[in-house]
């Protein structure tokens, strides 16, 4: 019998509790079918990148948590936090206990530049820094040398600009946000004076949204710097701006021209928006050149950049190296050139794209055939593009495929989490329910109140678990 009725509910395991996971849960729970959703999350805290990715000074972008909270309180929904799929529970076990497993586990790692010196001390991924200032337990103990005066950010997307803004802001601009206390303390002692935001293509191709771009011009003690020569566009870029598809780029250009023409203020910090440059090597202060080989032991001290020119027609322009090189002294570098998903044993993985290969949300094997009962949504499906809301449409599309497949899914009754060995009381991880999360959430809000912060996040898994199962007073 096809699952999805009151007597025979459709059991779905969702892996990941970020936006795509919650929008998938919403779609399933509003489908008109009887569906039971168990959402697995490796941390005790849900909400993925809305909690650990969205910048602390963008509180409005965290409002979707109110929507997720409403979804989480539906009777047919359960959170199973602090459970890592692929370690505490295998994909095979989930497939046996549920009619369908829907992966919404995002893109957790960074793309590499693939240049010498990439791993020198002082060179970091944007992910590490974002996780660190947002209190992600995985990045709690990372260290960033903010005694440097020059920081370089490679990449010009919204994450790059978040990193830039957090480095550029004063403590007063951050202290009433939910930024992690340990990060605020380090940033208070920051000696950074210059931040270089490096893009490999021109200003017309930058991926910023205009709103985030404008913010760089509205900082208390930091001015944007643009080289007017960078704003002289080639005919192909001018054609892009005149096209409807170029409307964001056109607005961005207006913002940049505003930056270039306004009088400089005597600010403590400056952000240099730089274009048509690619890093080719990171060098250390031991003079040995970075990367593999002998030598080493030194700190990052210099980035070598190569100037690019654009090639190709409008909207197809790519960056080509010209051979002209320049160096920039810097002791701190973040790369933010894109993200990749991480493989989970038991699920096909495309290491080049960093996604679970899929068609219409159905995960496919090497031959391209859909594997019954395995689905993907969000960044692990389409790669790291779009903003929070983009994932809603994406998740709903996958849910439609899943619901259409009901006749071909396993038709027997399923036990859900109760049927998964190792998740019972007294065994395996301490499973964190949504009610448990609300205890942690309440404690965070309380900790923040005395500092005028919306919350002070816990940064260690053990701290969060300690709040649970306390004997009654």
């Amino acid at each position: 019998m096809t699952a999805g009725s009151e007597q025979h509910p459709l059991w779905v395991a969702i892996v990941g509790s970020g936006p795509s996971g919650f929008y998938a849960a919403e779609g399933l729970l509003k489908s008109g079918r009887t569906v039971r959703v168990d959402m697995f999350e490796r941390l005790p805290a849900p909400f993925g990148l809305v909690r650990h990715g969205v910048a602390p000074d963008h509180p409005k972008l965290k409002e979707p948590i109110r929507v997720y909270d409403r979804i989480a309180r539906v009777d047919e929904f359960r959170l199973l936090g602090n459970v890592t799929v692929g370690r505490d529970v295998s994909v095979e076990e989930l497939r046996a206990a549920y009619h369908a497993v829907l992966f919404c586990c995002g893109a957790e790692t960074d793309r590499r530049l693939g240049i010498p010196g990439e791993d020198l001390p002082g060179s970091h991924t944007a992910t590490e820094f974002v996780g660190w200032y947002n209190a992600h337990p995985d990045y709690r103990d990372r260290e960033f040398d903010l005694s440097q005066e020059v920081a370089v950010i490679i990449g010009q997307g919204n994450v790059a600009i978040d990193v830039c803004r957090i480095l550029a802001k004063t403590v007063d601009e951050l202290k009433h946000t939910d930024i992690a206390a340990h990060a605020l303390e380090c940033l208070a002692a920051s000696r950074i004076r210059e931040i270089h935001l490096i893009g490999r293509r021109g200003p017309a191709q930058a991926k910023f949204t205009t709103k985030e771009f404008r913010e760089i011009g509205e900082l208390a003690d930091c001015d944007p710097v643009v080289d007017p020569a960078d704003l002289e566009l080639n005919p192909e870029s001018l054609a892009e701006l005149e096209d409807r598809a170029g409307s964001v780029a056109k607005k961005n250009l207006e913002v940049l021209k505003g930056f270039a023409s306004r009088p400089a203020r005597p600010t403590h910090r400056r952000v240099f928006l730089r274009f048509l440059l690619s890093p080719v090597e990171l060098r250390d202060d031991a003079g040995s050149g970075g990367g593999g080989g002998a030598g080493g032991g030194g700190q990052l001290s210099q980035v070598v950049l190569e100037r690019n020119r654009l090639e190709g027609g409008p909207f197809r322009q790519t960056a080509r190296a010209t051979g002209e090189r320049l160096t920039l002294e810097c002791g701190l570098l973040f790369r933010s050139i894109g993200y990749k998903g991480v493989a989970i044993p038991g699920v096909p993985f495309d290491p080049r794209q960093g996604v679970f290969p899929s068609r219409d949300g159905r995960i496919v094997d090497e031959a391209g055939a859909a594997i019954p009962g395995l689905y993907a949504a969000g960044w692990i499906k389409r790669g790291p593009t779009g903003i929070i809301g983009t994932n809603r449409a994406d998740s709903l599309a996958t849910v439609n495929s899943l619901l259409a497949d009901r006749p071909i899914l396993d038709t027997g009754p399923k036990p859900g989490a109760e049927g998964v060995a190792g998740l019972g009381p007294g065994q395996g991880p301490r499973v964190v329910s949504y009610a448990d999360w609300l205890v942690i959430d309440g404690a965070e809000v309380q900790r923040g109140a005395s500092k005028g912060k919306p919350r002070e996040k816990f940064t260690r898994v053990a701290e969060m678990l300690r709040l649970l199962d306390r004997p009654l007073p």
Partner: protein
Amino acid sequence: MPTIVTGNCERCRFTDCVTVCPVACFHSDDQMLYIDNNVCIDCGACIPTCPVQAIYEEADLPNELRVWIAINAERAPNLPSITEKEEPLPGAEARKADLGF
């Protein structure tokens, strides 16, 4: 800064926008949609999804369309919420062509 649905939505009502709204801030009557700016988070996800470019951030709103700020504010809270895509109104494609899209 509010995000506003303007007159191009009237007699079209394509509703692509509602599928990408992360906070369910769209409301609708028979003719068009409106945004409840007490709920909207200004993420802008909806703006590029509109086939007739009816949605604007306030900063980009042409003067002759500013009247829609008050109309959205007034109507949205009193109308039912819309979170799933619906069929466009009959004649929507013709109107889209008339509007030059």
